[in-house]
């Protein structure tokens, strides 16, 4: 059964107008909501910067990595946290060397926190990605790449600073988040 309005041309116009008005009215709150929802897209990751982590003397020169917290001012949406641990790095140096190697503790596979298993190797508790003490992949490992190294500077007076960055996980190339 179809019910025709008295004048079908007028009826067609009314239908189009009704859909247009209703659609437009509903579009306003939806558009405002989506606009606000997409706000994170224009927010950039904090630019990588050298952050002081520790003193050279705090890293024993035995080739075994030690875990250190990275401290920085952090802004999380509306809250500003002055000097807060924002992540962790493993630092390591060879006998008698002033050169420090830094590895981020974030697993390049899926982003879990990689743990040091004794003094033998690194192991990720999530999927058992295994890495040697210098961060290289120990097969078999689900991780697509070695642990991410970070640039590390040792100052005149022995202060150790690390260029803190996060990298996309799960891919073979090491690409910094932006």
């Amino acid at each position, binding site marked *: 059964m179809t*019910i025709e*309005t008295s004048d079908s041309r007028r*009826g067609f116009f*009314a*239908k189009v*107008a*009704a*859909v247009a*008005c*209703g659609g*437009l*009215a*509903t579009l*306003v*709150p*939806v558009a*405002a*909501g*989506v*606009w*606000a*929802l*997409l*706000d994170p897209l*224009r927010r950039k990751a904090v630019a990588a910067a050298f952050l002081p982590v520790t003193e050279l003397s705090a890293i024993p020169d035995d080739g075994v990595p030690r875990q250190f917290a990275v401290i920085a*001012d952090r*802004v999380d*949406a*509306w*809250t*500003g*946290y*002055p000097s807060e641990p924002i992540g962790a790095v493993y630092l390591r140096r060879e006998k008698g060397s002033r050169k420090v190697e830094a590895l981020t503790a974030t697993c390049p596979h899926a982003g879990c926190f990689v743990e040091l298993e004794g003094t033998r190797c690194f192991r990720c508790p999530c999927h058992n990605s295994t890495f040697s003490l210098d961060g290289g992949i120990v097969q078999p490992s689900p991780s697509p790449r070695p642990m991410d190294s970070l640039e590390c500077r040792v100052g005149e007076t022995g202060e150790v600073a690390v260029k803190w960055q996060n990298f996309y996980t799960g891919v073979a190339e090491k690409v910094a988040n932006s």
Partner: protein
Amino acid sequence: MSKPREGRAGPLHWLGDFLDDRTGWRGLIHEALYERVPGGARWRYVWGSTLVFAFMTQVITGLFLWASYSASAQTAWESVWYIQHEMTGGWLLRGIHHFMAHAMVVLLALHLLQVVIDGAYKAPREVNFWLGLVLMMLVLGMALTGYLLPWDQKGYWATRVATNLAGLVPFIGPALQKIVVGGPDYGHHTLTRFFALHAGFLPATLVAFLVVHLALFRKHGLHAKQPITRPDGMFWPDQLLKDTVAMLAVMAVVLGVILVPAVRTMLAGGQVDWGHVGAELGAPADPSQPYAAARPEWYFLFLFQFLKVFEGWGATGEFLGAIVVPGLIMGVMFLMPILGNWKLGHRFNVAFTLGIMAGVAVLTGLALNEDYYALWADKQQVAEAAKLFDETGGDEAKLLAAVGGDRAKAAEIAGQFDSVEKIRRSEAFLAAVQTARADGERAAELAGRPERIPPGGALELVRRDPLSQGPRLFAQHCASCHSHVDPAAPEAATILARSSAANLHGFGTAAWMKGLLDPEQVAGPAYFGNTAHKDGDMVSFVQGDLQDADAWKPADIEAVIAAMAAESGLGDPKTSPAVIDLGRDHVSNEERCGGCHRFRDNGTDLGIACDLTGWGGREWLVGLITDPTHERFYGDTNDRMPSFGKAAEGSVPRLTSDQIGLVVDWLRGEW
């Protein structure tokens, strides 16, 4: 397999047929749209649809707001600030949600009015009318709970009043209040509970009732305006077009309310700060800070005013005004469908509804008139009465004496005292609104600094802000003696005459010091005139020695002024160092200032006059306010100034060192 339909082809129609066979969607749509409208489509039937639309808008904007809102005492205001000031389009999203809530209350009133006047509540539609009343209360409940969620001063204090009134319900009141508030005090759980009510329980209940409301509406059909004079129409598209036009109009009005102020700023060539467009956000809720601008939203203002009718009745009055009378009114409304069965019942119902609405309008008008009276009152006309009121404090005998025993005149003046008091109350309210707005803007400004809000919340930020706290602390603790007024201001003379200690406006600056060394001013009300030092050594020095033009050339005095301003750190940075050095020489010279004052390493003992080392600087002022009786300052010549930071063993000082710091930073203009 779908069976082929005549004259139709193409993949879209095939998909339509495929789904229709499995869901029957064409039938459902048909049933939903092809409803007979007796007597044809009319504008007066649009209100129900606009309400559904308004509710849908609230659901959509509410869900998106939810994606950025955080309900806790340390994050509610902060997250709303972030939505309003930092997120793209956040101001628009929040503005639509805020003002659509207002629109919904108006639409509710219109829908109710239309239903009652048209008699659409009568048999067999009684149940649907009752459902409508429940829906109305649910909407009002959502308005009430939503008002608190930003956790600003406005919502906080208004909601405190509302929950305290809930505590007046007999027997269960106190328990009810505790359950809603989430404990004996306002805090995290108040927010989590109000949020759950606002975004969960109430809308879910509303949807359930709305489904039944709409189902019954379709079952009974549209109640047509009688008598029917025109041919029947169809819901689709005739009535729906009118409905959607009305929806668009509602949205246009809401957008207009949000955008018109911004557009006006733009047209005037100004820069629009979008964070301040749309719904207002006050200063963060602070239970320790009075909020004289506390008022419910305009649609509850009538209730606020109604409670004043019962002033002086105590808790009984509030119980009557807030619970019994509104309860009786709702009771009568629930009985309307039954009353409508009698011949005169419908007329009574219409008269009752219109009467209530008129009453609400009158009460709202009265409330607004009380609050904004000063804006339109003729102050000139009661100027004399205002002056006499200040002089006599409203005392009849004093008034009679003041007008020289003229009884008729005294009676006339006394008759205007009410008006004077009304203006004063209104002015106080308007000032409080101003302060509230300024506080809100200041809080937003502080939150917007690069270091953002501390983890303890925005209240911490506000509490350690000299600009907003300084004047409050000064008013509370200092202003009973000291004034703080620009000497060039027109009201300065009156204010200075009332003060009994120095004017601290610009203390530490060259201008202040210049006044101190001016023989005309030093014994005046802005300096020592109203203190015990009026006849002291400093006054006689300024009026005597300093006038010896041989010893003190104008350049010498200027140098001293420059040196002292440099000492406080508030001097003109362009002043030549040579001038300052000359000034310092004079200040430390024991033939000049150094005879009484200690300054840096000159040899004068402390205790004769205050130490000028670091005069007017932060450390110096904090020291002075903490303990003016210390030998660095006034010692035993201290006039009446309390030691604000010192307390006897076991008691608390009048001001904490943080508070003293706030007053000092404010006085020094550092914020």
